[in-house]
């Protein structure tokens, strides 16, 4: 019981942050500590590993073998058509973890504890997004491996193939930013899990991910053709299989950057107000 406050001054390495450079260095350190923390948590919970790895594999097999036979696609085999779509869909769905983890940590008071500590304000969100990016990158790579095993092939060379993966991951990260805002604004694990993320379903399924948009009723096509997930998936498909790149490339970039510009400040503001 004796050592609680001995050497009170010696234990704290940090003095008040002064210079901008020092602040940035400490902020980066904090973000990495938070990233490591979140990955450690992820690693401890079998359910999270299931959602990251097993569930996406099941999706690939389901679409490839159960629905795939019934869905004709133009100028391609279904598995080649499917893979860019399912990579984007899985990357977007990884953001469930983002929203739920944040809501849960708010409810548990963990975030409040962090906010009472001299941690860079950005570190909690940055760590969250960084660890989620790594998590969804793993998902994407696993799906790609399974895709290869069930007949998928890139037809457009290595460079575009890598770009396609990067674009899929970027979509996932951007959607995580929306989900982060949702989690921070709703602050209740149950509500986030039950209705906070329903928008993800139309966004990913009413897109060109699994079915050519031309096969949908007209009123659905109007939505499906003009929403960001379709635009990104069409670009990913062009990168993987060949086809015109330019139009969808800049549309994708505008959408992704646009969503970041709106939702990152919203998430930061919601974090401050928790």
């Amino acid at each position, binding site marked *: *019981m*004796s*050592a*609680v*406050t*001995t*050497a*009170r001054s010696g*234990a*704290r*390495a*940090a003095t*008040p*942050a002064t210079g901008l450079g020092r602040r940035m260095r*400490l902020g980066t*350190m*904090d973000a990495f*500590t*938070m990233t*490591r*923390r979140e990955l*450690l*948590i992820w690693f*401890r*919970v079998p359910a999270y590993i299931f959602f990251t790895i097993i569930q996406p594999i099941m999706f690939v097999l389901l679409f490839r073998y159960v629905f795939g036979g019934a869905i004709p696609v133009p100028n391609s085999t279904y598995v080649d058509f499917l893979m860019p779509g399912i990579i984007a869909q899985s990357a977007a769905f990884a953001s469930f973890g983002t929203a739920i983890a944040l809501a849960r*940590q708010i409810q*548990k*008071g*963990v975030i*409040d*504890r*962090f*906010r*009472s*500590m*001299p*941690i860079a304000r950005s*570190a909690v969100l940055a760590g969250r997004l960084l660890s989620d990016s790594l998590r969804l990158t793993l998902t994407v790579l696993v799906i790609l491996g399974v895709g290869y095993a069930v007949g998928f092939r890139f037809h457009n060379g290595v460079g575009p193939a890598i770009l396609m993966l990067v674009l899929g991951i970027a979509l996932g990260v951007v959607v995580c930013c929306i989900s982060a805002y949702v989690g921070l604004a709703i602050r209740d694990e149950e509500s986030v899990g039950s209705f906070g993320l329903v928008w993800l379903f139309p966004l990913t399924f009413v897109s060109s991910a699994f079915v050519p948009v031309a096969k949908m009723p007209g009123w659905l096509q109007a939505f499906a053709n003009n929403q960001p997930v379709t635009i990104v998936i069409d670009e990913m498909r062009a990168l993987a299989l060949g086809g015109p790149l330019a139009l969808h490339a800049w549309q994708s970039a505008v959408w992704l950057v646009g969503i970041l510009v709106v939702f990152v400040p919203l998430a930061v503001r919601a974090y401050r107000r928790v």
Partner: protein
Amino acid sequence: MQDDAAILVEDLHKSFGDVQALNGVDLRVGRGTVLGVLGPNGAGKTTVVRILTTLLNPDRGRALVEGRDVVREAATVREIIGLAGQSTAIQEELTGRENLEIVGRLYHLDKPAARRRASQLLDQFELSTASDRPAKTYSGGMLRRLDLAASLVAKPAVLFLDEPTTGLDPRSRIGMWEIIRTLVAEGTTLFLTTQYLDEADELADEIVVIDHGKVIASGTAETLKDRVGGNVVEFVLPDRSRLADAAGAVAALADAEPSTEPDTGRVAVRVGSRGSDALVQAVRNLDSAGIEVDGLALRRPSLDDVFMALTGHAAETEEPVGGKRGRKRRGRAAQPAEQAPTQGGPR
């Protein structure tokens, strides 16, 4: 202003929509002392703690911790405080050790230092044997201890504990008190909220009582008790017929009339700040009047009595009947405030 004040709060107001949570709170906590903030559910205790720990901005008024404004100098305030909130902020998937090491890293201790500090705290809080188990396997008392340990990683000069023993069994509570006493002996300034009157009495140098977002009384436990009328000499007559004689015999001890209860034969007389001399005089007077008594005792008023005297009602709660913390005091609500309480308090 007062340079020995570790915490200074002036005219603090905060409302949430229609709810006026704080309605002009003033406080001062001397460096190295313990302030016990006492109040029923919904009094505003947590709101004060959240403002002082930079989690919430006040609507009006100001608050300083070690002379730093909690709004304008929030970053500096965070460097000097520690907080263990009303609910524990432990990541239950991680082990006790991991929880503490990560907090250490977030305070920018290097890896070996964070590891050392975690081991030290785990030892100190008797969590060593459980240190490598996920915290979700811990008991409530262990989680509380781990949470307190986490708030101490950076050796804060000012510590905020929001109801640190709520929900603990009596043994764990006393264990927690011992830990808190050790901290205080080493010079930490402590801001402690509690609903337990005996807890404030045990730990605090100064007590403020808040109700409906306002400080309704403050002072040491002793001065608060004096405000209720001070000490009480109490005894029971085996022979009820001599009640009037007995009251007459002890009437000289105080200005106020002794109160008597014909049903139980209990007589109580308020003797203000007089102590054992009043007791001795009571024994003499009763003896010379030839009156036999049982259980003659000098009783200090409990803080329950204080709350009754200050508010005219027992510490009411927002919780429905049977709420875990309101029960004890609710039971006493039937007594009028003027009547000498007939049950022994914590003392």
